């Protein structure tokens, strides 16, 4: 327990967390500090390209681990299953409607790549290695949760998106294509593949761009995330009943537990297990919200965005990640 606290404390005073906190505080104080939308998108492209490429290059270097396929499968299953867990929890401890609960559930089954990136930075700083393909596992976990959530809505007798009305849409091929080919999945998997193909030689050519400045870029991006999260939370404070708040913290812990079990069964390294916990604990705030606006427009975006970005993201960043690392170490670390 002491070790966890020490680790958490150390994590808390890293530049990346502090820049997130700075953004958060600035938003609450209504400072006009802001990052232009184009710059924020550019930073996120950089992070996806870098983390994907490094994962691929690492796979190229260490060879394809026997558990790679199993890990991808586990990721798929987790992403499909987590929304059901989240949905159940939400219906138990909050008064959310079926549609709102399903929309929130989709976010928690999917993943937050910045949370993943931060966790991998913490691992690197702690001198721990992890399976390079974990970034691919994260990528495959982005989309399936959306399908589970739409199924939950359909089951409740409400067509996911109106074949009713004039426009005749639905979870049609078009929406499915949009979900599977959304920009962050494509760039993450594409960069992973390019890293795997070009290997260490490719890495050597672009290392100075994607490795050395990575932590610094992450600081700037987290400053922006803090600003966006803080602004969202400030404007929707009324919304956050105790039940929702509790969910925003209980759900990542639940997800992390399932991730721990999965990672343990797969026989991953301590670092790999910690990452599996982290992605399971994290909630999407880029791809899934956009999909929900198309497929479940009646769901209130303020609820899922505030939960994912305002509660769970900061929780994972500050408290969750050190806990997951400590637990993984205690149980599986030599």
């Amino acid at each position, binding site marked *: 327990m002491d070790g966890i606290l020490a680790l958490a404390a150390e994590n808390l005073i890293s530049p990346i967390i502090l820049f997130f906190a700075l953004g958060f505080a600035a938003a609450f104080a209504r400072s006009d500090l802001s990052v232009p939308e184009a710059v924020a998108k550019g930073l996120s492209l950089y992070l996806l390209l870098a983390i994907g490429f490094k994962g691929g290059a690492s796979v190229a270097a260490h060879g394809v681990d026997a558990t790679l396929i199993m890990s991808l499968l586990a990721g798929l299953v987790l992403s499909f299953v987590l929304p059901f867990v989240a949905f159940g929890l939400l219906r138990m401890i909050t008064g959310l409607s079926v549609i709102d609960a399903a929309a929130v559930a989709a976010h928690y089954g999917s993943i937050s790549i910045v949370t993943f990136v931060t966790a991998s930075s913490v691992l690197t700083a702690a001198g721990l290695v992890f399976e390079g393909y974990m970034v691919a596992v994260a990528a495959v976990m982005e989309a399936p949760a959306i399908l589970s959530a739409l199924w939950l809505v359909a089951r409740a007798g409400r067509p996911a998106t109106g074949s009713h009305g004039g426009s005749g849409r639905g979870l049609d091929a078009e929406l499915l294509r949009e979900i599977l080919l959304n920009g962050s999945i494509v760039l993450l998997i594409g960069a992973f593949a390019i890293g795997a193909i070009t290997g260490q030689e490719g890495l050597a050519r672009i290392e100075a761009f994607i490795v050395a400045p990575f932590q610094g870029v992450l600081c700037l991006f987290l400053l922006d995330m803090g*600003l966006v999260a803080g602004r969202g939370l400030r404007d929707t404070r009324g919304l956050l009943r105790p039940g929702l708040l509790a969910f925003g913290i209980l759900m990542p812990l639940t997800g992390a537990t399932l991730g721990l079990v999965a990672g343990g069964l797969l026989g991953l390294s301590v670092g790999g297990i910690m990452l599996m916990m982290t992605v399971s604990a994290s909630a999407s705030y880029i791809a899934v919200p956009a999909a929900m606006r198309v497929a479940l427009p009646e769901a209130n975006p303020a609820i899922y965005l505030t939960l994912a970005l305002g509660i769970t993201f900061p929780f994972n960043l500050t408290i969750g990640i050190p806990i997951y690392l400590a637990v993984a170490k205690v149980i599986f670390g030599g």
Partner: protein
Amino acid sequence: MQTHKAKRVEITIEAVMERRLAESLEKVGVTGFTILPVLGGSGRSGRWSREGQVSRASGMINVVCIIRPERLDSLLDAAFGVLDRHIGVVSVTDCEVLRAERF
């Protein structure tokens, strides 16, 4: 200078619905429109801003569509089919245009 009567339709709609709106308009033969970016706004669901946002989820666009008066109804039908359960605003203004052959 010779001008001609037309309708100016401005549709403020969620960015995620852009492709669907465009396709819907094309289906009823409306192929001329211009898309303006939106920085933020306010509505029943509160204030929002694109500052620092990465996800397209919370963004809107402003689609301007100038058409001959007689085609207004089919355009509105098409737009309404997409707007449907989505947030968004449609306004129609009388206007005059140059070069009527383009509409």
